[in-house]
């Protein structure tokens, strides 16, 4: 089975999860400054992990959120259900 699960990918997943959790919390607590600071700090880390991933494998997100080398890398396996 092909896999892209590795320490880097799992770090990115963990950051994304923490960001989702803070995002939902901020929706009902928009004035919580501590949560907002955590959110911004994790977004910075996530962005840097996503850039590293994109340089290696091509876009993580479609429609303009990452450049591709030639040939078009977006179509590359594995897709999440095949990992």
């Amino acid at each position, binding site marked *: 089975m092909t896999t892209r*699960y590795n320490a880097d990918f799992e770090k990115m*997943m963990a950051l994304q999860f923490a960001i*989702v959790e803070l995002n*939902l919390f901020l929706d009902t607590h928009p004035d919580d400054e501590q949560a907002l600071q955590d959110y911004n700090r994790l977004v910075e880390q996530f962005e840097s992990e996503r850039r590293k991933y994109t340089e290696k494998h091509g876009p993580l*997100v*479609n429609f303009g959120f990452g450049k591709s080398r030639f040939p078009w890398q977006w179509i590359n396996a594995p897709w*999440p*259900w095949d*990992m």
Partner: protein
Amino acid sequence: MFLYQKMLQFPVQVESTNPALAQLILEQFGGADGELAASMRYLTQRYYMPLPEAKALLTDIGTEELNHWEMIATIVWKLVEHAPIEKIKASPYVAHFVDHGRNPFPHNAAGVPFTATYFNAKSDPVADLHENMAAEQKARATYEHLLQVSNDHGVNQTLSFLREREVVHFQRFGEMLDRVQDYMYSKRRCY
């Protein structure tokens, strides 16, 4: 616009092929309290919400639920992808197989196809937020039933994660209900 990110929220790994378990897990793919109903419910209810934070919360949880829908499909796919046909023939998944092969399809564990009657949008924020809180509790109960019938450790890790998300969403919808009710009272409208 919705964007696609090539990443699940939590890893999906299964121990062994198991078409019988796949059939049961389809409950959360196309059942009344499943992830598709959840996502469509929240994304559909956004338009008339009186508070911007309610529009944001429904957008965000509705989007997260679509990822959960994909995680459920991934569990089902991995349970049947390499399942030998003899194992499929000896399981309740065989009824799914004759129509859809190994591809997942939104129906419940008993094979009843998905329908939009599983959710509603009433243009009434208090009614809808209550529906959402009930839906999260029902989805949690379904995950607990699935955890009682599954012996696959990998599957159970993902199911436990998804169960916890239902608890968090219930909490957030409860907080939003408070905010919406405060707003309604401030407008001197009683509910």
